[in-house]
């Protein structure tokens, strides 16, 4: 039993308010989290990200709805704003109907806030039962106990959703507030869509915890593009727990640039043969920012392919973490898994921790993992400058090229350009800082 967890739960967990199936799960989750407590560095999967310490000595309390205009600071706006989409907007973790766009949903498409879905009587038992692997289970439990709202997206069989769906989360108010968000995304067989998600905050000290349960049926396809751009004093947790069906595909590309500390974790489980999943993350950190990118891919069935790529740029005293784990079940022959972490250190005081793990119980598989940590290539920098390109521009070109493996792979062209632009802004802020 952890006092820290109990205090936190007393302040932030959701009281039993129905429906009954959810109350049962909230109660169990509360008990489980109270027992486990916030993960700390003596827990192997959290060795480099001591969440217990990160949230300590703060009187956390629930965020309250933010009514009225949301004044987004310059340069921090929704990067996907120009893209015609179905859109759900959350502010301080609460759904804002007036900022969302949910008209003209095609038949077979459900997009609505969790609260409304619960009122309709929709049950999400399996989503709320999926706690992911041990590394992620405490956070899933915390989220189940405390989540107040979130997004529900469900596509019926064979629906090819033409417009992307945007999930935009703004956090304008800080002051030690917390917002726990639960998203449930279910694509029935043969359905496909693009999800554009942005988490943007400027309220100061706050904690956001977002858990997304994915369930992709046979041949379903989800393209997931994310921006994590939190306040420099914020702590953020983002967890994706996914089941990927036979011949289904899940492709995630994320740009993370904000936050005092963050953990982006994904657990992807193959539920049918011939499935593909990849999760690629680009992150740019400076000052004392910390970002942990953790992924567990479970090749539970034969013939699936997976990839995880993390590309980090670390300046000042920033720290990065990559933990990648591939599990191949004994009968999961013909599995193909790749995991790679590349970090570029721009400062002598920046640090990177990479821990790839393979647990392979089958013999006819291809699994590759690797990690590199380096500095900007001095020869390349000299070459570019010798052609008249200014040093700052040359550095930016090389860093953009380094991140290109993640950002250039985004299939939605406008979203790709928007996130590349966001990364460029990061460099500009840097050059201003150094003058």
């Amino acid at each position, binding site marked *: 039993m952890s006092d820290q967890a109990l205090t936190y739960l007393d302040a932030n967990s959701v009281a039993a308010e129905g429906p009954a199936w959810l109350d049962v799960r909230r109660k169990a989750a509360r008990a489980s989290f109270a027992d486990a407590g916030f993960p700390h560095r003596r827990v192997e999967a959290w060795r480099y990200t001591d969440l217990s310490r990160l949230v300590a000595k703060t009187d956390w309390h629930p965020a309250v709805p933010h009514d009225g205009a949301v004044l987004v600071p310059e340069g921090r706006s929704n990067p996907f704003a120009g893209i015609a989409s179905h859109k759900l907007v959350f502010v301080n973790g609460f759904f804002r109907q007036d900022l969302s766009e949910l008209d003209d949903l095609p038949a077979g498409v459900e997009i609505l806030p969790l609260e409304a879905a619960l009122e309709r009587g929709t049950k999400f038992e399996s989503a709320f039962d999926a706690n992911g692997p041990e590394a992620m289970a405490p956070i899933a439990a915390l989220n189940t106990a405390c989540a107040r709202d979130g997004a529900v997206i469900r596509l019926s069989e064979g629906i090819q959703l033409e417009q992307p769906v945007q999930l935009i989360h703004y956090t304008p108010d800080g002051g030690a507030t917390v917002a726990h968000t639960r998203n449930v995304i279910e694509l029935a067989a043969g359905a496909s869509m693009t999800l554009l998600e942005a988490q943007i905050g400027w309220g100061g000290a706050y904690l956001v915890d977002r858990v997304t349960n994915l369930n992709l049926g046979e041949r379903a396809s989800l393209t997931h593009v994310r921006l994590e751009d939190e306040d420099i004093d914020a702590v953020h947790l983002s967890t994706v727990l996914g089941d990927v069906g036979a011949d289904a595909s899940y492709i995630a590309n994320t740009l993370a640039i904000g936050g005092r500390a963050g953990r982006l974790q994904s657990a992807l489980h193959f539920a049918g043969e011939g499935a593909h999943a990849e999760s690629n993350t680009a992150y740019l950190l400076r000052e004392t920012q910390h970002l942990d990118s953790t992924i567990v891919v479970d090749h539970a069935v034969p013939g699936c392919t997976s990839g995880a790529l993390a590309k980090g740029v670390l300046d000042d005293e920033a720290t990065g973490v990559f933990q990648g784990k591939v599990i191949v079940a004994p009968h999961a022959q013909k599995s193909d898994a790749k995991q790679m972490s590349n970090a570029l250190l721009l400062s002598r005081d920046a640090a990177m921790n990479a821990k790839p793990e393979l647990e392979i119980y089958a013999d006819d598989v291809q699994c590759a993992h690797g990690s590199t940590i380096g500095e900007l290539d001095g020869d390349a920098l*000299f070459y*570019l400058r010798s*052609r*008249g390109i200014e*040093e700052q521009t040359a550095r930016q*070109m*090389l860093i*953009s090229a380094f991140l290109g493996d993640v950002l250039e792979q985004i299939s939605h062209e406008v979203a790709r350009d928007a996130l590349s632009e966001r990364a460029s802004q990061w460099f500009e802020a840097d050059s201003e800082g150094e003058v």
Partner: protein
Amino acid sequence: MLEIKDLHASVDGTPILKGISLTIGDGEVHAIMGPNGSGKSTLSNVLAGREDYEITKGSITYKGKDLTELSIEERASAGIFLAFQYPTEIPGVTTMTFLKTAVNAQRKARGEDELDAVKFLKLVREKAKELKVEEDMLKRPLNVGFSGGEKKRAETLQMSLLQPSLAVLDETDSGLDIDALKIVADGVNRLRAPDRSMIVITHYQRLLDYIVPDHVHVLAKGKIIRSGGKELAAELEASGYTDMTESAA
């Protein structure tokens, strides 16, 4: 154009250049020949401004100004171009993007208008055709997976786009077969002009059959031990470096 006086330079504290003096007039082509380790590449890197090379003594005056006060990129915009012996591979930056960035960076530094995409494309296509550089090569990441010939043609293409006043060609012939060498040499010869000088650094005389110099200097152990006309190159080819370095010693 360029006046080097008693130049001494070190790399990581090891003296490499030990008193080089060289005067290059407008429009002149000077060949610098020498055995491996004589300091040829050090001289080219020092001229380009590479930061690991420390000038310990002497001066370099370019167009009447102290060259050593300029940064790498300032030298480039002032008209100095180094054609690399081993052009650096830069993954993730396409050749076209790089060329446009470089051309416009220099134009901007000189207070000229930047070229728009259409004008730039027209210019590149024209120059690329002369050097038999395929459009496909321009779309590939800079120098990545280029053959030896492609790399040197790409260097020559950059030179013809950037129109330098002083081109330093560092072992441009290395890694080239005779056909590739001719294409590159033709490209270089087209750039010869009354207001453009060149320093051609090479180990072998072969390149100088195609790019005929006005003056030839022999570099050994960080010093110029002999200077002469183009016939000096032929003499070297016949007798080798050993004779010459020994007779100088």
